[in-house]
């Protein structure tokens, strides 16, 4: 039987302590979360409870909204305490939505990567036009939007098309394995932000042709 909570528990028991930019420390039954870069700081603002995670995850250091939670711009300066394992799970679902469950599905062989072409072929309404993006435009867009440094921390599992691999990203970005103690952030399908970007690329190209 699937159990995301058991997966999290087993991962912690095996020495897991890191997910994305977050460091997790167990304190009895409770847990403390901080930004990785803040582990040595003693001037952190103490926060408590699952719902505080939502606000911490929502805004970057400049107070700007973070629509992509795996963008490498998690805010600094806080220390969050959660009471137990179920609360930790819910807090992590705010910080890195679905990433625990997606990793569990990956381990169980139930995570089916969807090629970008299949994602775009499914779109209707204002996003149908994304189907017109060329392979070259798509590779360039992905290389810019999804790159690990400044784009997104997830590791991409999907190709451009079944027989067209991604060519514009580092090997690390396409590697689903993570260092010991680190829970991998996996991307099995292009997100809506990338689909929206594809629309921009196509529209811009159409305007330039006119």
């Amino acid at each position, binding site marked *: 039987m699937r159990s995301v909570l058991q997966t999290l528990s087993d991962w912690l028991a095996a020495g897991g302590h890191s997910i994305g930019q977050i460091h997790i420390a167990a304190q009895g039954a409770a847990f403390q979360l901080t930004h990785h870069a803040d582990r040595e700081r003693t001037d952190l603002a103490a926060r408590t409870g699952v719902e505080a995670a939502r606000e911490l995850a929502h805004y970057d250091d400049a107070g700007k909204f973070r629509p992509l939670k795996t963008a490498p711009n998690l805010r600094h300066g806080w220390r969050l305490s959660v009471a137990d394992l179920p609360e930790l799970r819910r807090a992590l679902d705010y910080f890195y939505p*679905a990433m625990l469950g997606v990793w569990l599905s990956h381990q169980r062989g139930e995570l089916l990567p969807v090629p970008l072409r299949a994602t775009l072929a499914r779109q209707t309404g204002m996003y149908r036009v994304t189907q017109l993006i060329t392979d070259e435009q798509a590779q360039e867009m992905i290389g810019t939007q999804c790159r690990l440094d400044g784009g997104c921390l997830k590791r991409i599992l999907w190709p451009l098309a079944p027989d067209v691999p991604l060519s514009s990203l580092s090997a690390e970005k396409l590697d689903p394995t993570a260092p010991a103690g680190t829970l991998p952030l996996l991307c099995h399908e292009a997100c*809506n932000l990338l689909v929206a970007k594809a629309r921009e690329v196509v529209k811009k190209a159409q305007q330039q042709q006119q």
Partner: protein
Amino acid sequence: MIAKPHSALILVGHGSTVNPDSSAPTFDHAAEITRRGLFAEVHCAFWKEEPSLRQVLHMVDAEEIYIVPNFISEGYFTRTVIPRELELTGPVTERDGRVIKYCEPVGSHARMTELLVHRAAAVAPGVPPEKSTLFIVGHGTNLNDNSAIAAKREVELIAAQGRYAEVRNAYMEEEPLISKWDEYSTQPNVVVVPFFIADGLHSYEDIPVLLGIAEESPGAASANASGVFANNPYDRRGRTLFYASAIGTEPLFADLVLEQVAAFDAAHAVPA
């Protein structure tokens, strides 16, 4: 009260890449339902935010999953986008040992009428309805035809209760325009409730500007947010005006989510 200790509930919202207030009510209602401990699991999913509709089923352990769209009415998202992204085949989808039950959108529930009246009374405490005009404000473009129809239906239902002297529809971009609220009302008190699922530019700024209770702000519209709902009532155009936040921010919406699950079960009950 419905209790599904072995089932998962997924509340689906639209979300936004620019405005965190768009997903806030969906997260709030999910947190409230989680607090009540009625389901084994409660998750959110969004079209424009994370977790996405393509990710959310991986979060679930339960084999029975109820999907409730946190939308104001039936429409493109509830009929096309959500079923497509979740790969639903109908009201009941059986796949990979799971049963996925797709409920009606929250805003379609019959209790919406009660919530609108509740919100109107709460924003204007002690103000006699028989001396008040109630406006339900929708967007009013073709894109939102279904929500405009739903808003009209709610106005008819509230009017039929006979409590308010007048109950009117109004729109931002179509007649009857909310900017002419004083022409469409005869009562000394006017109560305005936006028929939206979340607060955002429309409820923070666009409607307040049209009502004449706020100026257009050069920066982020959310700068108006704290002020515009807190400064009731407004004395404008010889009336006393009360302005509520979007109906979808009403905490009682969490009850409607649960009611939609119960309504699904009632509609799809297997005869004994």
